[in-house]
């Protein structure tokens, strides 16, 4: 007999509230419904009542981890509307902070994945190594999150030669640690048992449901905005687009770990080839009427901002689509046919950022004779216990 379990909205594991109504038959998940909306803040409406300069800080706070990706997309959209050309040094510094942010986000994800599986040691060690990146970001921008580096016309702060040496010194231990974590992920037996074959998403389904980011690249879809629609300093860098043919959670883990190593390589290249010159140009306050589509690759996938201007200093419409929303249909598909114990790790494998998604989640439970309410923490403990007792 199938009955439905509502899970959420308050759960300590994920950073944001989410609500799932999971219909199960014994231990197997038959159907999932994900309802959104708890974090809806009305940012698109708020953006219409603020000037472009104030909107830079508003878009920065759409997400705490992808904050540089959102500001970069917004600023380069407005710069395209104004027809400005940003000096090369400014573009390099912008790309450097974007890549440092990608390193910090992927290390954070490795820790969260370890925590969801009950592997708290991995969580502690990756977050300790993440402190190296956070200190570098504080050195460059003045803040650990929500950096405030971008402005319309370039970046606000410059990098001194002393900072360059410190960044290069910081890359050295990060590279060693990333190789070490890649080794742990591919050889630790407990990790592999929980992630191999779990949350399968075949390539055709990933293309059909329009997944983006490491979720799609872990299923063999080669789509990366940094290569296909380049922006900022990416045309001057040489890097590889990492894909994996596995299609399960282990594939997505390996993609993120290898992307860490690519990002470290890119940061080194950016510091060594940093050109001289100005970092910003002066920008007018009023923008002539027009429209622009601006895209970027955040740590979680493709971000798009659509801006329409009407001649004043406020945008007529700002539309933001963050990557987690594009991955929802894919994660709902990959949960079906799995066990209840796999729900935490499969949901965490798309690296959800619900405050990026701007959606509200309300879960309705279908009426049935038996109803069981589980909080996320209970579900996580359930998963760890179930696999521990399996043999």
């Amino acid at each position, binding site marked *: 007999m199938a009955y439905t379990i509502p899970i959420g909205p308050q759960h300590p594991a994920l950073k944001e509230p989410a609500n799932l109504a999971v219909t199960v038959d014994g231990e197997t998940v038959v159907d999932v419904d994900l309802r959104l909306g708890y974090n809806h803040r009305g940012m698109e409406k708020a953006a219409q009542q603020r000037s472009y300069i104030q909107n830079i800080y508003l878009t920065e706070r759409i997400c705490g981890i992808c904050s540089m990706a959102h500001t970069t997309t917004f600023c380069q959209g407005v710069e395209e509307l104004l027809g400005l050309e940003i000096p090369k040094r400014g573009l390099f510094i912008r790309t450097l902070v974007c890549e440092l942010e990608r390193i910090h986000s992927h290390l954070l994800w490795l820790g969260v994945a370890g925590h969801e599986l009950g592997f708290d040691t991995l969580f502690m060690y990756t977050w300790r190594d993440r402190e190296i990146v956070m200190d570098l970001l504080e050195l460059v921008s003045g803040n650990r999150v929500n950096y405030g580096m971008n402005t319309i016309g370039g970046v606000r702060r410059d990098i001194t030669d002393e900072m360059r040496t410190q960044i290069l010194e910081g890359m050295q231990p990060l590279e060693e640690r990333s190789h070490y974590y890649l080794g742990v992920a591919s050889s630790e037996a407990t990790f592999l048992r929980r992630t191999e074959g779990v949350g399968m998403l075949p390539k055709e389904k990933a293309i059909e*449901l*329009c997944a983006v980011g490491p979720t799609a690249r872990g299923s063999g879809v080669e*789509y990366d905005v940094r290569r296909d*629609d380049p922006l900022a300093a990416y045309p001057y860098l040489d890097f590889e687009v990492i894909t994996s043919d596995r299609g399960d959670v282990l594939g997505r883990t390996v993609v993120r770990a290898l992307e860490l190593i690519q990002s470290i390589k890119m940061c080194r290249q950016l510091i060594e080839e940093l050109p001289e010159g100005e970092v910003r140009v002066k920008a007018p306050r009023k923008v002539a009427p027009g429209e622009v*589509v601006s895209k970027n690759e955040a740590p979680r996938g493709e971000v798009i901002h*659509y801006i329409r201007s009407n001649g004043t200093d406020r945008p007529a419409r700002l539309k933001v*689509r963050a990557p987690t929303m594009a991955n929802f*249909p894919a994660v709902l598909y990959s949960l079906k046919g799995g066990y209840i114990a796999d729900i935490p790790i499969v949901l965490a494998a798309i690296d959800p950022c619900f405050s990026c998604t701007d*959606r509200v989640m309300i879960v309705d439970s279908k009426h049935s004779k038996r109803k069981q309410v589980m909080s996320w923490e209970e579900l996580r403990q359930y998963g760890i216990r179930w696999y521990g007792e399996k043999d």
Partner: protein
Amino acid sequence: MPVESEIQGKLEEAFGKLGFEIDVPREHRLFVRIPAAQLKEVVEYLKRSLDMTHITTITAIDVGDDIEVLYHFFCQGVAITLKTSVPKADPVVDTITPIIPGAVLYEREIQDLLGLKVKDHPDPRRLVLPEDWEEGVYPLRQDYEIKEE
């Protein structure tokens, strides 16, 4: 010949007699204005002949008497945007989920926030707003004002 001009040529050949306006502002971008009745046909053509499989998002803008709906696709390295317009008095568009299943959440969002009606949508529930929100009040329309406290 660059990809954008190739795509422009093919679209003009297939739909030129209907008077589409095509605009190529820079590389990797293409904007096409089409009448709302032709929407499904053009999306079908993009998928079949131009190998398009990825929809990025759907935007809807309130411009006074009409609501403009923009569909952003990604195809062969170019971000193609289809622009259509429906009158505010009768804001109905066709669903494209039979052709592109990934568009289901974006259509639910424009239904919720701007009051567009998407014909034959497989799952027309609210996405963003809470369940007890008033019917007929659409936050992203121009006439909805945020009151300062």
